[in-house]
């Protein structure tokens, strides 16, 4: 029993980070119908920037905010400089998705060029060896606790932002019906660019907390990004609560599968989840969108 709880606890903490990644993807998907394949790479750039600042002996309070802002600015630049011109030239939805693949390739190459492909360890204020007892012999490390906390706090802040502020109202209006929002005088481009920025912000936040557990190399976000993808699909690609639930469920399921079945196929689970969910219930657990049947 305590072994089960132990797996569940560590699954929850990694799941919270998957939720953050998934939230960023869902935020963009529901407002623009674009799957952002560059999400993981923007997070990588932000994390590497934080790494550089940290290795120049800046404290983490000085290093993390600029990294988060860098990620957000990158995403907004991509929106204004590449996506809007493409939309002016009537790019198809698929074309816009391919543009994000292009962004992902460019960022990946630049990170490998400037920071090298050698795996590096990420100095982090929270340690993963210091542990606390949760219940009997179930323990949680400081790092996992931090990840769980940041995942939940990030999700809560996003919830309030989207549900309780004027900006959130505008974001919901834009994702509901773009032409109507434009007619009502909502500056849709500014709102959408903020959505992109916010999504990248969440991505970098997840990246910073994932980096200490994984080793930092230009491809370290690929796997969490795909897991975030699976989580988003599981919860429903246009549902923000779904992304959180999907991330947590995926994290726990993965940790249990790794513990009880086999460690080797732990990572394959996410993709099996994707395929099964898409076949059985394409709109996801909490999604409401009517999927066009072919």
């Amino acid at each position, binding site marked *: 029993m305590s072994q089960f709880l132990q797996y569940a606890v560590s699954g929850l903490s990694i799941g919270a980070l998957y939720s953050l990644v998934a939230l960023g993807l869902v935020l963009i*998907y529901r407002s623009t*119908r*674009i*799957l952002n394949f560059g999400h993981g790479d923007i997070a990588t750039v932000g994390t590497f920037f934080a790494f550089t600042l940290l290795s120049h002996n800046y404290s983490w309070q000085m290093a993390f905010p600029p990294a988060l802002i860098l990620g957000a600015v990158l995403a907004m630049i991509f929106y204004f400089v*590449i996506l809007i*011109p*493409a939309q002016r*030239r009537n*790019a198809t*939805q*698929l*074309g816009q*998705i*391919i*543009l994000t*693949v*292009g*962004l*992902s*390739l*460019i*960022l*990946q*190459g*630049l990170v*490998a*060029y400037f920071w090298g*492909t050698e795996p590096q360890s990420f100095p982090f204020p929270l340690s993963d060896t210091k542990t606390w007892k949760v219940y009997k012999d179930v323990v949680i490390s400081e790092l996992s606790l931090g990840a769980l906390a940041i995942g939940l706090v990030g999700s809560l802040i996003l919830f309030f932002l989207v549900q309780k502020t004027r900006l959130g109202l505008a974001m919901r209006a834009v994702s509901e019906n773009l032409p109507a929002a434009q007619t009502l005088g909502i500056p849709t481009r500014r709102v959408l660019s903020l959505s992109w920025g916010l999504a990248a912000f969440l991505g970098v936040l997840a990246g910073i907390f994932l980096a200490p557990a994984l080793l930092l190399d230009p491809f370290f976000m*690929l796997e969490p990004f*795909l897991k975030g*993808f*699976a989580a988003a*699909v599981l919860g429903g*690609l246009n549902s923000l609560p779904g992304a959180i639930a999907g991330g947590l469920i995926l994290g726990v399921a993965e940790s249990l599968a790794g513990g009880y079945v086999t460690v*080797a*196929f732990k*990572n*394959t689970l*996410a*993709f*099996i989840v*994707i*395929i099964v969910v*898409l*076949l059985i219930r*394409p709109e996801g657990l909490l999604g409401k969108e009517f*999927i*066009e*049947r*072919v």
Partner: protein
Amino acid sequence: MDLIESYKEELRLVRRFWTGFWIISLLIALIFLPWYGKEHWVYILTLIFIFSIGVQGQNLLIGYTGQISFGQAGFLALGAFTFGHLARFGAPVLVSLLCAGLVAAVFGLLVGFPSLRLKGPYLAIATLGFGIAVYQVFVNSELLSGGRMGLTVQKLPALFGLSQVNTYYYFNLLLAALFTLASYNLISSFVGRAFIAIRDNDISAEAMGVNLTTYKLLAFAVSSFYTGIQGGLYALLLGYLEPNMFTFLETISLFVAVIVGGLASVEGSILGAAFVILVPHVFSDAKQLVPVVYGIAIILILIFEPLGLSGRWLKIRLYFRMWPFR
């Protein structure tokens, strides 16, 4: 761009004398290349031939049928490892090559089933999941991947008194030519027309009597057959296989080749294959910059020239036909 007056004329692959002339001279130049070209260039061209087969398959799926697939690396791996294992049991090269294509095609059918229900971005995710799942299965299963040391494949012996590089060159030239011919014939047949109808509007295609289930699955099967053959040829060329050759990056380079070469164009596929082989070659000093070049190429092409290199080629030809008037 030409006025077509009869159905027979539409079915003809080479419509004008000069087109035929240039194709034949290109073929002759390629056949005699080993006599005057450097061995290095012969090898690069061999790679382009192999790659162009897979890119054509991908283009049949993305460009002609309009179904996106991010799982090509999976089919590539399936084809390559099928070929590798069969070759180890001593099966003849052509038989194992055919089996490589067929195994990939069967999995293509399996992956095609979601395509009956999913569209656009959802299909992209499902196929992406497939590609990475295949990679991870191969990474984690030593039985399939041939153990830690990888799988060694018997190389092609030097035939007819040619050097080994040249044997590979002619073998792959022949296969690439056959597959190119097959793609041209496929797209001008009723099957190709059905694919194009599905791409342009699947509901009206169904109303016109195109069986969506059959043709979508067929598109997936044909596309993955091509990719499986590419995998087999790749295994034969390298003589060595390990799962790390078939990461997501491989999917991306096939994808980049289709976009850069031009959607729905067989000539474009060959140009695209040349692009993704030549770019890493030119940037061999700064390998990390290769993805950057790919990414910039994708973005520029999608914004400024959605038809890719073949679209640009068509425009240049039109311009010179009217030259100096426009």
